């Protein structure tokens, strides 16, 4: 991936994936993305896109609903099933309401009917990229916390679980059948290893770790 002169977004560089079977439309979309210095990668079918390795950089998918192999909506389902949460902007030559509702319910960022205003598409693309960036950051945060969490001993994990439930050291000691002083040491270890600055901070981290 070549580093783009990023006018609209901020680093790291984002990628727009375009899936449209109509060569002309596909090229026009690419040209539009390039004009605002977005890195763009075209695909002519849903299957072709599925085979492609999506990078861990901000990205979004501009997806035509009608495609030769399977539809954009089906691709959306397949991506969701494989836990790929790339933000999707649907474009279609002719969209009906049920189709739109289905796409939006499944988490699409936008559903645009051709011909659309370029600004609408670009706004949606930027919003999608921003969302993806956030998601990437969130995923990175969770991963970081998980890594910290993984460093805890089994006893420390037990203690942390009870601490974030708001239990007093005394109560925890009683529950775990040990002394209050021991719990205090464990608790300090947890705070240190998790790099938590306060109890609420630790509670937030615990929620993040527990999320997916």
């Amino acid at each position, binding site marked *: 991936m070549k580093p783009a002169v990023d006018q609209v977004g901020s680093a790291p560089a984002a990628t727009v994936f375009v899936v449209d079977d109509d060569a002309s439309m596909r090229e*026009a979309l690419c040209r*539009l993305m390039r004009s605002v210095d977005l890195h763009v990668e075209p695909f002519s079918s849903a299957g072709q896109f599925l085979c492609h390795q999506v990078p861990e950089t901000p990205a979004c998918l501009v997806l035509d609903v009608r495609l030769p192999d399977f539809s954009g909506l089906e691709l959306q389902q397949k991506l969701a099933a494989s836990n790929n949460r790339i933000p999707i902007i649907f474009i279609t030559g002719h969209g009906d309401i049920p189709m739109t509702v289905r796409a939006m319910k499944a988490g699409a960022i936008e559903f645009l009917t051709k011909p659309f205003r370029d600004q609408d598409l670009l706004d949606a693309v930027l919003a999608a990229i921003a969302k993806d960036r956030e998601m990437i950051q969130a995923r990175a945060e969770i991963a970081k916390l998980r890594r910290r969490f993984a460093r805890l001993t089994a006893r420390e994990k037990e203690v942390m679980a009870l601490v974030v439930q708001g239990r007093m050291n005394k109560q925890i000691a009683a529950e775990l059948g040990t002394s209050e002083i021991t719990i205090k040491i464990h608790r300090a270890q947890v705070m240190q290893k998790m790099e938590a600055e306060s109890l609420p901070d630790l509670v937030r981290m615990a929620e993040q770790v527990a999320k997916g």
Partner: protein
Amino acid sequence: MTIASQEDPDSASELAALRLELKQCRVDLEIIRNSEQNTRRIAESKLAEEQLRRSEADLHHAQRLTNTCSWKHDLSTGKVIATPETYRIFDIQPDEDASDPALYFGRIHPEDRPRVLELFQRCEIEKADYEADFRIVLPDGTVRHQRSVGHPVLNEAGELVEFVGTAIDTTEQERTRENLERALAKAQKTEAYLVEAQRLSQTGSFSWHVATGDLFWSDEMFAIYEFDRAVDLTVERVHQRVHPDDLPMILEVVGQAVREERGWELEHRLLMPDGSVKHLRAVTHAEKHASGDLEIFGALMDVTASKQAQERLRLAHMELAHVTRLTTIGELTASIAHEVNQPLGAVVTNADACLRWLNRESPNLNEIREAISSIIRDGHRGSEVIARVRALLKKAPPEKQRLDINTVIREIVAMVEPNLCGATLEFALTDGLPLVLGDRVLIQQVLLNLILNAVEAMKLVTGRPRLLGICTKARDEGGVWVRVTDAGEGIKREHLDRVFTAFYTTKSDGLGLGLSLSRSIIEDHGGRLWVTSNETHGVTFQFTLPEKLKGELAP
């Protein structure tokens, strides 16, 4: 004598003896003479008798041959004398008294008897000739017809002595006459029927003696041409009625047929004085007379009404085809919108991108150039789509032109492609096919129908590919052959033929007109449309289109 008296008595007695002898001689001579005469007379009378017998025999033969008899009724004796043929004609038996007039009167048919007897009596009183036709009944019950002629014979005193007469057996003539009358009546009836039939069917018949130009026309011919019966029929006058556009064609067809001494079949028009047009259909055959002259016999039918009905039917059919097409295209709106919006979307997006590139500090001219080229391309693409849709939507009379069937298929497929519902198209289009003569829109309508039906048939198919095959080939007989195969649910054998019936449908929202119309469209093009079941899944619809249409004689 004086000499003898002067001589002696002996000589006198001798003289006397001589005299006696002489006398005797004279007597003998006389006798001989008489006897000779008699003999001659006998011979003469024998000859006469022979002649009489012969003439009687001749008469008998003659009477026999002509079924004629003659008789004489002697009024004084009341007896009848008749020729043998009379007995035969009246069937008189040997034991019957042939001289009894009552026997003959008795043979007269009871229905005719009073009339005939009255006539006889009147003629007897008036001493007049009579002539009568009547029937006789023979003992075996046979009825025969007879013509009897009688003539009264009067004596010097002017009294009626007898009646002589002849009778002819006219049974054969009578029978012939009756047959003739029957035949004539039948012929008259037949002619009446024929005239009526010609009037009803508006068919006239005619004959034309080519060498003399003589024309014979039935009444209906005059009615069709609206000529007065009194008109002097000439080929020229007939030709004046013919529609001027058709005359050269008629002259050519007829001229060639006459040269080849055969009949012809022809459809042409008449232009009537009031400006109306009649459509005629003529069928003729040629006959060559022993003289070598050619005579044409023909029937000519006024098919104007049927032509008009045909034309109305054709119009109704076109109307129906148009409406059906609209319905089908209505189902395709989504596709059409997609097809139009696709290039339109690309145009707008390229134009937007173009502007953005222009507005940059250092415009990328390559991007701008490519964007504009693409806009031009898509502009044309969009207008082509619209033209195709408009062509399908328009209601224009069929326009037959030379078509490349593969192009026609590709165009329609481009339109239905977004509507394929997951079916995969498999093309097997043969290159270099002969061009076919047809109406693009109508043939596309057929293809549209077959493709949409195939898609519909495969809608619920799972577990096997939804293959839609379209194949074209050249036919050995000329023309092309198109096959549309699906892998759908198939059609039950007993329904295979019914699918072409109007209003037969398995779809809940279908009219059931698509296939019936498709078939008539293809048949109108001189081709054939049929369906067969596939060995594995689904059915195959196939149609053929000839290179040219069967020559039409008249527009």
